[in-house]
C-alpha cells in the first residue's frame, strides 16, 4: 500500500478544503438537493482525513490493509462524493450525475457500487457499530488499519451510537476514532434543544473514550489529532469537532434553512467568490 500523499502545508490543506466546498456547492446547485449545510460543516474534517491522515490508495480501494473512513452522517454524501472524486476514486466527471436518474450517486452513499464508499449510510446510528466490527475484524485478522467514523451531532440522539460506544470501550478498540461534526443544528432545531447533548465530550469520556474537543475547521489541527490514532491511551478516540453549519459561505453559515435549501445560480456564483474560486 502506498503512503498517503500528504500535504504538509497548512495553507495547501486550507485551499483544498475551499476547492472541496466549491465542488459541493455546485453539486447541490445542479441537483437542487438537501443537506448542503451538513455537507459544508464537515469539509475540513474530510480534507484532513483524505488529504493527510488516511492510508488509502484510490487505485486499490479494497486493499485489506487500508484505513477505513465511514461517513456515518450519510446525508453529507455530496461532501464524500466530491472528496472521493477529487482523490481519484472515480472520475470527477461523474459528479454531474449526482442525484440524476440512473446514476450511482444517490442522495445517500450506496452499498457495493462506488469505489471508496466503505458503507451505505443515511440511516443514522449505523456507522459506529460497523466500525466496531471492522476494528475487531482487523484485530482477528492481524491487520492494524485504523477506522474513522464521522458522526453528526444529531446522530448522537440514536441509542445505537451509545450501544456502540460502550462496546468499543469494552473491547479497547484503540484503532477506532469517532469524529463528531458538532455544528449545533439538526434537521429542524438546535441540537441541544432537541435532546440534551451537552456536555458532549464528557459523555464520550464517561462511556470510556479518550475524548478531545477541537476547532472542526482547523484542518491541520484535526489532522494532527486524527493521525495520533491509536494515541497510547488504550481507548478509542472521540474528537468533538466544533463546527459551523454551512461553513465557508457567509450567507449559509449557522442558518439552518440550508439543511434543505439549495443555492440559485446567483448564490452559487457568490459562494464561489467567497471561497476564492471565482
Amino acid at each position, binding site marked *: 500500500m502506498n503512503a498517503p500523499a500528504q500535504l504538509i502545508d497548512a495553507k495547501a490543506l486550507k485551499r483544498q478544503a475551499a476547492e472541496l466546498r466549491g465542488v459541493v456547492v455546485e453539486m447541490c446547485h445542479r441537483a437542487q438537493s438537501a443537506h448542503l449545510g451538513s455537507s459544508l460543516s464537515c469539509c475540513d474534517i474530510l480534507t484532513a482525513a483524505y488529504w493527510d491522515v488516511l492510508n488509502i490508495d484510490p487505485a486499490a480501494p479494497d486493499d*485489506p490493509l487500508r484505513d477505513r473512513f465511514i461517513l456515518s452522517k450519510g446525508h453529507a454524501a455530496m461532501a464524500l462524493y466530491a472528496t472521493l472524486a477529487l482523490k481519484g476514486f472515480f472520475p470527477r466527471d461523474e459528479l454531474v450525475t449526482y442525484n440524476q436518474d440512473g446514476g450511482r450517486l444517490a442522495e445517500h452513499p450506496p*452499498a*457495493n457500487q462506488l469505489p471508496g464508499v*466503505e*458503507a*451505505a449510510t443515511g*440511516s443514522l*446510528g*449505523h456507522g*459506529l*457499530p*460497523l*466500525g*466496531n*466490527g*471492522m*476494528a*475487531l*475484524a*482487523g*484485530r*482477528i*485478522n492481524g491487520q492494524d488499519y485504523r477506522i474513522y467514523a464521522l458522526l453528526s451531532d444529531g446522530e448522537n440522539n440514536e*441509542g*445505537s451510537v451509545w*450501544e*456502540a460506544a*460502550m*462496546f468499543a470501550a*469494552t*473491547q479497547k478498540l484503540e484503532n477506532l476514532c469517532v469524529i463528531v461534526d458538532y455544528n449545533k443544528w439538526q434537521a429542524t432545531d438546535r441540537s441541544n434543544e432537541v435532546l440534551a447533548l451537552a456536555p458532549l465530550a464528557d459523555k464520550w469520556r464517561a462511556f470510556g473514550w479518550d475524548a478531545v474537543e477541537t476547532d472542526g475547521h482547523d484542518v491541520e489541527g484535526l489532522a494532527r489529532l486524527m493521525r495520533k490514532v491509536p494515541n497510547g491511551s488504550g481507548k478509542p478516540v472521540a474528537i468533538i469537532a466544533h463546527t459551523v453549519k454551512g461553513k465557508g459561505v457567509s450567507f449559509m453559515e449557522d442558518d439552518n434553512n440550508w439543511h434543505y435549501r439549495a443555492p440559485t445560480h446567483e448564490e452559487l456564483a457568490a459562494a464561489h467568490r467567497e471561497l476564492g474560486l471565482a
Partner: protein
Amino acid sequence: MRNAFADEITKLGQEDGRVVMLSGDIGNRLFDKFKAAQPERFFNCGVAEQNMTGVATGMAMNGLRPFTYTITPFATTRCLEQIRTDAAYHDVPVTVVSVGGGLAYAGLGPTHHACEDLAFLRAIPNMVVIAPADSWEVRAALRAVLKQDRPAYIRLGKKGEPVVHAGPVADFAIGKAITISEGADVCLLSTGNMLPEAVEAAHLLKDQGLSARVVSFHTVKPLDETCLAEAFARFPLVVTLEEHSLNGGFGSAVAEWMADNGPQRARLLRIGTPDAFFKKSGEQEYARHLLGLDAASIARRAADALAPA
C-alpha cells in the same frame, strides 16, 4: 435445537477460522466450549442488539463469518433495521440465529413470543430464511449457510425438542424441502419446530384411513417451488404448518406462490397462529393446544377439509 447449535458452532469455529460468535448476553454457559477453544472469536455483545448486528456486518465486510445469537424478538425485531440496512443491503454473510422461535418460550409471555419474525425477515431482499425442524437440521443448516456468501436467518426452537431425523441430514440444501414420509391424501408442509406435530398428525390421520405426506419445509425463503408445484398438482389438499402468524409467514409465502402460479389442483389450508397476542400464562404445549397447532387439531382440520361437503 439450542444445544445442537452450540455444539455445532463450536465445531465450525474449530474448523473455520472465519467463524465468529456474537451473543446478546444470553445462553449462560452454553458457549463455554466455544469460548475456551476460540476466546478471540467470541464476543458477549451485551443487551445491545443493534450494535451486535452492526458489528457482525463490519466483520462480514472484512472476510469473517459472524453469527449473532439471542432470543428471537431481540435477534430480529429489535434490530430489524440493522439486519436490513447493514447485513442485507451490503449483502454480506452475517447469520442471525435466534432461539425461542414461535411460542417455544410461551411461558415467558408475549415479550418473548416470536410469531412475526418470518414475515419480517422474508420481506428483506438478499435474506435467506431457514427454520430447521430438529437438532439435525440445525446442524445441517449451519454448515449450509457457511458454504454460501450471503446473509441468512436461522430460527431455532428451544432445547430438548423431539428429534425427527434419524441422524445427520447429509443431503440438506438451502431451498430444498425434505420429504419425511410419503402419503396420498394430503400433503403436510411443515416449517420449523412444527415438524414433530406434523409427524404425529400423520399418524392420527392414518388411524382414520387417510395417508399424509409429511415434508420438512425448512427454508421459507427461497421457497422450494419444485416441491410446491409437485405437491399442488398431486394432492387434493396441501396444509402449511408454522408456529407463526398467518400474516406474512410460511403459509402466506405459499399462498403468494399459488396466486402467482395459476390454478392448482390442491386447495390450501394454512395453520398458524392468529393475528393476536397470546396473553395467557402457560407453556408451549398448552399454547399450541389452545391455538389449534397441536397434532390432534391439525389432523382434525385436515380430515374436515378432505371430507365431502
